[in-house]
């Protein structure tokens, strides 16, 4: 018996130990780093304390009855019922509390809806399963993909500090400036959330939603997609870097230069090996989540590319489906998502990887011409 007890204690300790060691017992909302998030936090705390106060009174009366008016203690039931004064009071008092609560809530909401006079405009587009950030005034854009390795998710590797909350290209915004976000989506509904900003807005295909933020503290802020958007909904984080204005301006100049270089790459003469190398990377970010890294897909929703008739024979059809998508299915049009170089590289890769050894290649120029013909 004693042995069993010891074992049970040891087992319980073993189970609880990691909990107490890593312990992250964050129980409340964080006040965040913007005036909006601070206002939300104070609304949250106010309503929470109101609820606690009401709870203490109501449950207090109830527990008093439970302890004092038990039949087992010989309580004799009273027979009172209906009392207009009491009933009017417990209708009017909650109503008054609600009105008092509605006033600051309305003020905050009005402020949150004021998207005028912004300094920077950024268009955010949700894709299955990544975000595109387009700096409207500066003529460049990029995709932001989760960068947590699949091996960490599959438990083959220790999980990093920012597990699932890290991306290859974070959104960069200047501190102290009013940044307006224009949100939309390319396929299904997504929702863009950064808790520290108090900003959450749905990105809906066919709609453009507006919201804004002004961050005063430089830093890296993390959030996630919060509207179920398919199988990798849990794997499309949002990472925002708020940097001082000079740093931001430098970064923008750099991005514009890179965008220009990328355009010039279309003109370059590419070899099969170069395209394969670039294609493998582009495939991993744009295609692998559905068609899988080994090209076997997840039929029937996501067909296999390995050994598929289209990838082996139908070159015209292959270019068409990648550029224009397949309407009515989950296959998106990548024509506007990827550069000509990446489109050519992906198609070339798909026609030569996993034993699809067609030896054929498509050049960026061919893709450019194909798009122009349309």
């Amino acid at each position: 018996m004693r042995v069993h007890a010891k074992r049970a204690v040891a087992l319980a300790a073993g189970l609880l130990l990691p909990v107490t060691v890593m312990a992250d017992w964050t129980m409340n909302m964080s006040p965040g780093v913007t005036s909006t998030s601070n206002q939300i936090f104070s609304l949250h705390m106010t309503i929470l304390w109101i609820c606690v106060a009401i709870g203490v009174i109501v449950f207090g009366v109830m527990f008093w009855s439970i302890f004092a008016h038990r039949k087992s203690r010989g309580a004799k039931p009273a027979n009172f019922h209906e009392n207009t004064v009491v009933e009017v009071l417990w209708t009017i008092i909650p109503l008054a509390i609600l009105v008092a609560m509605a006033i600051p809530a309305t003020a905050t909401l009005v402020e949150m809806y004021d998207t005028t006079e912004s300094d920077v405009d950024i268009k955010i587009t949700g894709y299955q399963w990544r975000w595109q950030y387009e700096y409207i005034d500066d003529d460049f854009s990029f995709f932001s993909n989760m960068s947590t390795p699949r091996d960490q998710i599959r438990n083959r590797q220790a999980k990093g500090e920012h597990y699932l909350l890290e991306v290859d290209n974070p959104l960069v915004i200047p501190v102290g400036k009013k940044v307006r976000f224009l949100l939309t989506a390319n396929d299904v509904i997504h929702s863009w959330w950064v808790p520290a900003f108090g900003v959450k807005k749905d990105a809906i295909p066919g709609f453009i939603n507006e919201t804004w933020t002004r961050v005063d503290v430089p830093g890296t802020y993390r959030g996630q997609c919060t509207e179920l958007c398919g199988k990798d909904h849990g794997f499309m984080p949002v990472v925002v870097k708020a940097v001082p204005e000079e740093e931001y301006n430098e970064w923008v100049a750099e991005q514009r230069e890179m965008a220009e270089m990328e355009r010039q790459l279309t003109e370059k003469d590419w070899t099969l090996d170069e395209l394969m190398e670039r294609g493998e990377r582009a495939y991993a970010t744009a295609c692998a989540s559905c068609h899988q890294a080994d090209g076997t897909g997840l039929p029937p929703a996501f067909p296999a590319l390995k050994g598929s008739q289209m990838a082996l024979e139908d070159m015209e059809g292959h270019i068409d489906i990648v550029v224009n998508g397949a309407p009515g299915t989950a296959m998106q049009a990548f024509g506007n998502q990827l550069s000509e170089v990446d489109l050519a590289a992906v198609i070339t890769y798909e026609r030569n990887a996993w034993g699809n050894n067609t030896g054929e290649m498509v050049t960026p120029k061919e893709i450019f011409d194909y798009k122009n013909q349309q």
Partner: protein
Amino acid sequence: MSAVADTHTQDHHHGPAKGISRWLLTTNHKDIGSMYLIFSFAMFLLGGSMAMVIRAELFQPGLQIVEPEFFNQMTTMHGLIMVFGAVMPAFVGLANWMLPLMVGAPDMALPRMNNWSFWLLPCAFLILVSTLFMQGGAPDFGWTFYAPLSTTYGPPSTTFFIFAVHIMGVSSIMGAINVIATILNMRAPGMTLMKMPLFVWTWLITAFLLIAVMPVLAGVVTMMLMDIHFGTSFFDASGGGDPVLFQHVFWFFGHPEVYIMILPAFGAISHIVSAFSRKPLFGYASMVYAVGAIAIMSFMVWAHHMFTVGMPLAGQLFFMYATMLIAVPTGVKVFNWVTTMFRGSLSFEAPMLFSVAFIILFTIGGFSGLMLAIAPADFQYHDTYFVVAHFHYVLVPGAIFGIFASAYFWLPKWTGHMYDETLAKTHFWLSFIGMNLAFFPMHFLGLAGMPRRIPDYALQFTDFNMISSIGAFMFGATQLLFLFIVVKCVKGGKKAPAKPWDGAEGLEWTVPSPAPYHTFSTPPEVK
């Protein structure tokens, strides 16, 4: 027709038919009530086992047990089965058993339709559950099935899901018509509307809600069907459609639906609290008006589920104010229950334990509901585990504890035996602890920033998820004990008198226990 009349004259005081045909062909409200309750419990276990899969996957960060695709199928099917298969049929089962007994009627008003509305349900769920075995898997877009994820991007099985929803809707509407016809036409002489037991009142109002919103649900899934198969673009922006329209129509059904799942429990709890306090309900009339007010207001608050879709400011404000207003009649109900207990003579048998837990925990769910109603704060809460905590607090200790309380309260009437009180109390305490362990930490997870419907999470959410999973396993396993208690009670036990609870009131306690196959062939007189 004559053949039916003939058999009837031959054995006038007949009991149930023998064998399977008793259940297939029965028009007896007690048989049909039992079948509804059994079906609902089976669905509760099925939906619950899916919740166990979800909690097992979320026990630790990383993907261990299921793939994200299957995880999404589990969350979707868990929601659909619990809402349409467990909670709603359980209340219809209680209505079938108790409404005729409570209003002094011999049976439901439309007994043949009653049989059909039950037998449609297993058909609907057979179709729904079979999608798990189809190529491409079961629906994976959440129980709210937002377009275009459920249309353009849905799996092939979506069509089967749509037809299953149609059939469930037909079943619910027929059940609701039956309830209304029974209550309005078959009350015992002298039972005026304001003398009806509260369970009857709440079910009458629920039935009107059902008739109002189930066609809306049927409409929205039909529009999906059109989008998927017939080239329309109701919800497809690229064809001029509107994905947000889907949400408006869905929640116009969905919000009254949440009251459909709770109002009958309000009624049952009112009887139980009064019975075990040995004291009349504090404010009968104000309870009736509060339920009516909640029902009417439930049609005006649907867009509070959509505060983040980008509604205009005026719309945001309207839905925020309207939603906050619902707290008033709900508060009236809670205050009434507490005042009923105050200075009563309380005892705590299993029905009362579940009812007291109902009042406390449902109120906590109501508090988080009030927090969610504050639109600016909702931007932080929306689609996080805070919402998951909120609606599980109103559904599990709300709807489901309400059903358990009702089941223990009326089991002696149904079976003629007392259930095992010790086991029932064990069932209560394990459920109570398990449920709170499972769902309370979800508030913290949501506030700390964990989105809902994700198969894997960032490391800071690990600890509370572990606790939540342990609680969920505990709650899940405990429900097998309930099955055991009920089976034991059906098979035998202490003989139950006609009125096993000394404080209970109502016509159902005037008939013997177990209630004979046919009751109130001549209507009782209500003074």
